[in-house]
């Protein structure tokens, strides 16, 4: 990796670097525009853009690769920070207690297919477990955007969907440090110790966020957007760096900073960081694409397609089951299940960790995410017509009558 600044200041190269970066970012702008026009998330298009270059691609990127590598790291941190900012600490803890059963079903049904395929391919068990992570986690970004675009925020099944997403994010907080410390390797005892330390540190950090979040927020907040931006960004990078140092994964550190922040610091921070997040997240997807050799894709395309189909069905079953527990009728259950199909940013975050361990993981995950990030939103859009298909109409008919209003959903406080 070449330090960005020195590359830029070496005279003749500066122009080249700017040209290369400019071309890449303009290219991303074009694909994002196309994705928007056809109503899809840009993530798969960014990945394809990255695949076209770098390892095994059309051309190597020269000077810009150093920037992209650092940018990708920052992209992950910003994505997780923004996700954390969406939640308050109490909300997470409350959800964890209440929705453990649905979260368990989600984990079992959607982790298993990836894990099984990895093992069948004869991969290292850790790489197989990472593929399990890739198939497990829905894309909160894509799902949240879908719900808003399709005007489903007010629907009764929506809290069920959101709750499942929160549980997945919390599972990530434990999963990433464990995987990171397993990757670090060492003897069996040493591994057990590092895993325990990582999991313990994640829990302690989460509890610290719950406890001192408010104080941190008022400390960080400033009326000046410049001061606020620099404080937020600086704190997040420092915590992420420290977390990485103790094998906790920078992403988890950033997420927990986001969770700890609340109130004005969080709402103003979200607005300030959004443009930065958009830029660096795009860079992250390109960077992942760069690392993957596209010549491996034809070999894994069928597998990825099959895995995508299986895990689309398992997500629908998960959402169906969870929505049914909440007293939602058939069509709502299908809407909930289909909304969860889309995989995206976090599948790629997990895959990034394992590319070094198993090269096939990168190509398989990239293809898988490209399939599901495109397929998921389409299926969700069509879920109401699908529910009316003759074969599907019979499923789940027995219990809930369509004409009666369900008892208001989810066991919560009454007044």
């Amino acid at each position: 990796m070449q330090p960005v600044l020195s590359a830029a200041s070496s005279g003749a190269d500066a122009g080249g670097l700017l040209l290369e970066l400019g071309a890449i970012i303009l290219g991303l702008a074009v694909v994002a525009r196309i994705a928007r026009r056809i109503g899809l998330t840009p993530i798969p298009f960014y990945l394809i853009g990255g695949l076209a270059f770098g390892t095994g691609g059309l051309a190597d990127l020269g000077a810009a690769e150093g920037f992209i590598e650092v940018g990708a790291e920052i992209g992950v941190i910003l994505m997780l920070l923004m996700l954390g900012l969406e939640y308050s600490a109490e909300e997470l803890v409350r959800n964890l207690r209440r929705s453990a059963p649905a979260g368990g079903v989600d984990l079992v049904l959607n982790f298993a297919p990836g894990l099984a395929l990895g093992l069948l391919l004869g991969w290292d068990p850790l790489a197989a477990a990472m593929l399990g992570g890739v198939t497990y986690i829905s894309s909160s970004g894509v799902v949240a955007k879908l719900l808003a675009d399709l005007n489903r925020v007010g629907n009764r099944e929506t809290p069920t969907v959101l709750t499942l997403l929160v549980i997945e994010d919390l599972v990530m907080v434990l999963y990433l440090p464990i995987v990171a410390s397993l990757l670090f390797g060492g003897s069996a005892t040493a591994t057990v110790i590092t895993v325990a330390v990582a999991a313990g540190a994640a829990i302690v950090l989460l509890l610290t966020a719950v406890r001192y979040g408010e104080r941190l927020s008022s400390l960080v907040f400033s009326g000046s957007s410049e001061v606020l931006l620099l404080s937020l960004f600086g704190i997040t990078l420092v915590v992420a760096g420290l977390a990485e140092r103790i094998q906790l994964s920078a992403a988890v550190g950033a997420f927990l900073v986001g969770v700890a922040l609340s109130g004005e610091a969080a709402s103003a921070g979200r607005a300030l960081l959004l443009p930065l997040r958009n830029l660096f997240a795009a860079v992250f997807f390109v960077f992942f694409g760069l690392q993957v050799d596209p010549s491996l894709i034809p070999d894994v395309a069928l597998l990825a397609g099959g895995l995508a189909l299986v895990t689309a069905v398992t997500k629908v079953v998960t959402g169906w089951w969870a929505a049914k527990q909440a007293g939602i009728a058939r069509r709502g259950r299908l809407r909930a299940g289909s909304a969860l199909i889309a995989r995206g940013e976090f599948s790629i975050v997990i895959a990034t960790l394992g590319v070094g361990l198993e090269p096939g993981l990168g190509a398989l995950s990239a293809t898988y995410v490209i399939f599901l990030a495109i397929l998921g939103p389409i299926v969700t859009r069509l879920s109401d017509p699908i529910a009316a298909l003759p074969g599907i109409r019979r499923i789940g008919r027995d219990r809930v009558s369509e004409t009666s209003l369900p008892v208001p959903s989810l066991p919560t406080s009454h007044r």
Partner: protein
Amino acid sequence: MTELTETPMPGLGARWDMVTRSRRGVAVISHQTGRRDLVIYGQEDPDAAAASVELTTDEAQTLAELLGGSRIVERLDALAHQLHGLLIEWVTVSPASPLAGQTLADSQVRTRTGASILALIRDGEAIPSPGADDVIMAADTAVIVGDPAAVTKLTALFDATGPLSSK
């Protein structure tokens, strides 16, 4: 009162649901940002929002008033909101309060207690940001704001049950 169900919506806020006597589902989604959505559910598909209207804080308040906001004010009466060390309190002015009958200027509320009077509510009508010449009357509801200590002081003055030896 109609039965309300609260459903948390992680990352967004919470949803308050009710079913009307005519069996229609109505909900209000209260976003963390202060935005409110008024949602009416379909008759044919009871889980899908048939209509969803986004309301700003202002619009939501207007709608609430149209629908009988005075009942909400009554209920807010007992509520104290703590935001960043600032306390907002609704206090009824007791007839025995030393401030009853005085103008705001005479009462010197701000200098004496440090708390401010945001509004006076009299016979269901609000006098927002009362001026120096506005009179505090017994049985008014005063909306006061300040740090907790100041609010406690002023509340004591308004609540007074007998002549108070405050200077």
